[in-house]
């Protein structure tokens, strides 16, 4: 799957930047640390937008395209921010055969975003995830740390309403 590149404006803070600069300073000169720096950057910012990748490229003296290549190769890197509420739909085998795709489709329809994206106001993000080990409750989704199981698409509006979404 091609990753969605967010067009939500970058809202990094000076504190976040200082943290990332400290990580880069530790790893400078060792290009094999690129992955590590990217992982740390994702911890700090929640995702790897253009501005962050430029900081990494400049700091590590690696072409921006190489940073982007790594960020699009590995599933662990996100190019879109996580919302205040991150909805994660399990697409493991059990959930999938129990209709998880329909949950994603319904969520997409209600939120106006696709899997891997965040709403323009930064409130809600939607993603598909691997098995979370709650197969007995399939199909399952989580909103931040709360788990909802045995769902059908009809349950979606109520769940969203609970969060004022």
């Amino acid at each position, binding site marked *: 799957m091609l990753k969605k590149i967010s067009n939500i404006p970058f809202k990094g803070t000076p504190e976040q930047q200082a943290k990332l600069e400290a990580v880069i300073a530790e790893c400078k000169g060792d290009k094999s640390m690129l992955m590590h720096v990217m992982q740390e950057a994702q911890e700090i910012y929640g995702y790897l937008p253009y501005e962050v990748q430029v900081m990494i490229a400049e700091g590590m003296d690696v*072409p921006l*395209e190489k940073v982007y290549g790594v960020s699009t190769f590995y599933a662990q890197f996100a190019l879109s921010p996580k919302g205040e509420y991150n909805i994660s739909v399990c697409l493991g085998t059990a959930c999938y055969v129990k209709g998880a795709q329909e949950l994603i489709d319904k969520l997409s329809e209600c939120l106006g975003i696709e899997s891997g994206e965040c709403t323009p106001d930064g409130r809600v993000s939607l993603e598909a995830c691997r098995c979370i080990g709650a197969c007995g409750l399939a199909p399952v989704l989580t909103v931040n740390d709360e788990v909802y199981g045995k769902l059908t698409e009809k349950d979606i509006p109520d769940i969203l309403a609970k969060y004022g979404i």
Partner: protein
Amino acid sequence: MGNVNIKINGMPLSVPAGISILEAARYAGIEIPTLCYLKKINEIGACRICMVEVVGARSLVSACVFPVNEGMEVYTNSERVRHSRKTTLELILSTHDKSCLSCVRSGNCELQKLCKEFGVDNPNYYKGEMVKYDFDDSAAHMIRDNNKCILCRRCIAACDDQGISVIGANARGFDTHVSSAFDKDLADVSCISCGQCIVNCPTGAIVEKDDTDKVLAAINDPEKFVIVNTAPSIRATLGEAFGMHIGTNVEGKMVAALRRLGFDKVFDTDFAADLTIMEEANELVERVKNGGVLPMITSCSPGWIKYCEHYYPELIPHLSTCKSPQQMFGATMKTYYADKMGIDPKNMVVVGVMPCTAKKFETKRPGQSASGYPDVDIAITTRELARMIESAGIYFNKLPDEKFDNPFNESTGASTIFGATGGVMEAALRTAVKMITGEEAPNPDFEAVRGMENIKEADYKVGDLDVKVAVASGTKNAKVIMDKIKNGESDYLFVEIMGCPGGCINGGGQPIQHAVVHNFIDLKARRAEVLYNADKENAKRKSHENSAIKELYDTYLGKPGSHKAHEILHTTYVPRKKYN
């Protein structure tokens, strides 16, 4: 390291230890096909076409990266090998758009050649899921069509080898595609338009923007007076497009072909190269005399200029303000020559035939319209000219040798060597000696700046002046020099930089040679030899000896560096961002 004894297809051979099977096979006169391998710059074993059978090995191995060892027995053409290659080709074709009928690379496509050789002709084998990619035609000089891309990564390696790296393989698995960071258009990243990706692409996935229709439209317009000029290196390479040996000088046939295509005047850019030397040598002398910014760096190569603007904007004052020969030529045509001939520059169309894709970008730069109209209207590459000649039905190889038109038919040996790395430096030195000391250089050959090394340095004593010079080609090598200047570690007076490795003879607009030629033949040196031979044979070897140049200064410009010369022949540069 010593030699090892191996057998290739049963033939015993002694080859240097440590070389690859691919290289060893050359000793046996066997060419193992490849699609991704580029010696030294792309040795990644990705395309799986060069697979060979090694006795005792569990599976087939890729010859391009597998080293030979003592007692090794290799089969390069067994049934198993042929089956593997054919299957790989079928898999490549399963996501290839196969529009060979009108593809610009048809007949010169490395994929097509192999498919023909291996009889890949069963369409049912290669019906797979297809992705439809949009073209990227955002840049002034080229188009990328990922539907024809086979992911060999040669373009990426070429871009890395230039130290640019604005393209790479993004995403993974079936989604893998070549693009720029954040999938931005090429026009929105710091690509320098050098075109090295084009000349290294095995298929038609990356091609120059074709401007031949514009040229034909101008020729067919009775209102327009169409002047063509050909860069120094075109005569050294155009013959390759017609099957001639690499290193054939086709100047006479090229002129004849251009005349038959219907250009009103066929002039030599070499004239403008001589003019560039007059202005550039003068600028250098002035900078030395008046404490100007030193070292001064040449400005003939538009790929290099764009590189400097993107990556070293703070060093722009080091660039000579001289326009490139192409632009000086156009500017002279639309002012001096238009005056002389009584032609309205509005009705003049100046076409440059260039070894270079960045020249297409250069024609659109601001500050390049001395007459109020663009100095050069259309820049086409050597390849585009070859296509025009072909489609006009001109039998190039049988053409008589003809001469350039008057009055810009005179050029010196100095201008001809512009096309090879070190040539501009040597030409400038020949004239600078005269300008500084008032006497002719006793020996016009400045051998130390010749050759295909990445970076060359030399020290000359000119009068009382210590002239330390450096020459670099390929922007990755330019970076070394630029970092020295930036860090205050340079004691150079004058620096020549060409954007492409080897200079214009290896430009991104030159005829495309398959990887096997790049890998095993010194293409750059063979092409450069043509220019150095022409220089040797020319009675006039210094730019200031060119009588057309003398007349231009006497009757129009005054002297080098005059106010008028500045208005017409000089330009300015703009700082650009590395990230947009």
